[in-house]
């Protein structure tokens, strides 16, 4: 266990060293990130220039949700998106074999090999932005509310890590797919809107199959003082189900990989 933590810090360090090589690029990326934040908040503001409310959510509330959604995205990028994206490349170029040869859990290596440690700066900025938006909306959450928020946030990270991991596991069969990143992007962007926008038959899909509510809506609702009971059950259910499914699927896929050609 401790060993895996040590390994994880090694991955972090490696990434940092790698990123510092491209110092200028790292700086540029941070600028770009702020730029995207601006674009996103700008879009929301423009929408509310013509619209009064979105599924019952006011402008300040939607802005907070947008920031939380982006924070979620940033944290996924910091920890595991890089590894999942590159998996496609490794499989296609036969470098996955090297991961299999190592006396380390292959899922761990695949997921966390490319953590983006330098994202921490971005994330700190985002938390400040979030705090100021909360203050601007007159919301000051108690310690319990912060805890609840974090719990939902963490549940969301676990669930979506598992879901995305299952998606890239299909790469063992669908060798020619290289654009899983599109799916990740779309889901994470969709999570920046209140989950209430989905009506009718769409609602159960986006609540139970791809639980977008766990990206931002449920967590933010704690701050807004209107947390819903069902969100709690969804969180627990999805964490358990997705963890089990993704692990089983991965093991099944490994067996298949080792039976077929490389």
């Amino acid at each position, binding site marked *: 266990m401790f060993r895996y933590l040590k390994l994880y810090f090694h991955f972090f360090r490696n990434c940092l060293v790698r990123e510092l090589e491209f110092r200028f690029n790292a700086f540029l990326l941070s600028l770009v990130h702020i730029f995207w934040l601006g674009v996103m908040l700008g879009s929301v503001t423009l929408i509310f220039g013509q619209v009064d409310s979105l599924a019952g959510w006011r402008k300040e509330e939607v802005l907070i949700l947008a920031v939380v959604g982006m924070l979620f995205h940033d944290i996924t990028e910091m920890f595991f998106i890089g590894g999942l994206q590159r998996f496609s490349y490794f499989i296609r170029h036969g470098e996955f*074999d090297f991961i299999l040869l190592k006396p*380390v859990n292959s899922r761990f290596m695949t997921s966390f090999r490319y953590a983006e440690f330098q994202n921490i700066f971005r994330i700190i900025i985002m938390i400040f932005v979030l705090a100021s938006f909360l203050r601007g909306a007159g919301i000051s959450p108690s310690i319990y509310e912060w805890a609840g928020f974090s719990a939902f946030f963490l549940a969301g990270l676990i669930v979506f890590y598992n879901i995305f991991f299952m998606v890239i596991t299909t790469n063992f069969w669908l060798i020619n797919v290289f654009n899983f990143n599109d799916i990740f992007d779309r889901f994470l962007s969709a999570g920046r809107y209140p989950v209430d926008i989905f009506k009718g038959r769409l609602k159960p899909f986006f609540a139970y199959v791809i639980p977008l509510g766990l990206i931002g809506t449920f967590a933010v609702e704690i701050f807004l003082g209107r947390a819903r009971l069902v969100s709690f059950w969804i969180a627990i259910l999805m964490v358990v189900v997705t963890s089990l499914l993704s692990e089983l699927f991965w093991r099944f896929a490994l067996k298949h990989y080792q039976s077929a050609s490389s």
Partner: protein
Amino acid sequence: MAVISVQNLKKFYKVHQKEPGFWGSLKSLVKRKYYDVKAVDDISFEIEEGELVGFIGPNGAGKTTTLKCLSGLLYPTAGQVRILGFNPWDRKNQFLKQISLVMGQKNQLWWDLPAIETFNLNKEIYEVPTPQYKKTLDELVQLLEIEDILKVQVRKLSLGQRMKCELIAALLHSPKVLFLDEPTIGLDVVSQKKILDFIREYNKKHQATIILTSHYMGDIEQLCQRVMVIDNGRLCFDGQLSDIIQKYADHKLVSLILNKEVDPKVVAKVFPVKEFNYPKLVLNVKRDQVAGITARALEQLPVADLSIEEPAIEDIIRELFTGKDYA
């Protein structure tokens, strides 16, 4: 007890066939035809500790597949494999820590980082104690003379330098069994020699059991006493290299470039001609006669250029099949 024990190993794949061209692509969208590929078809052998064995065979013969089965990457269709008492397929950490696989054109090194970073990472992955790691690293770096490039990004290294780093990365945890799959492919002659020398040294010093595959006869000649010839998934020969060379590669090819026309019939009377397409003349000469015939050729023929080559490995293997009944 043998370190490596393989019994009746079989590995078959299903591959689909795509017809070429435009309509072929459209057709493959809907229906696909599959056929069986017998990559490894009943191979058995045993290898003792410290042996340096060569697998040779033409491309697609099943060498790489066999190695992948031995290292646990592939699940055999049939047969039994035991390495250091383990079943490679189980991929137990204890097993993985004692083996290493180096693949000719694939890197395990992180592309954007200096090699030393990958080395340090491997130290953690294989849980090599720090003092042992330092000692091993120093020894390997000295042997391969790469002190200067340790801190250079891997993507900036030449192919030869990269291969040296790959080898080090693979040996940092002092594996007892080492699989080398085409380690010298694409390298220049100097790098090739350095790497082969290194492997020989390493084998002698650490008594590591090494399997080396190559389709260059030269690699094998330099390193291996024992060779296994694999063709079409089958083991055609398992024994001493000197036997093969004596029995099957008993001649060399002397290629001459002539700068004046000569009468082919006259030449054929005096020299053992294999083929003659002016200006290129190839002689098929028995090994012990090479010096003599070459000297005579230089004397009697208008030679502009000359080279002496081994017969192609494919020829040797072809000979192994046709006629010579070797067990």
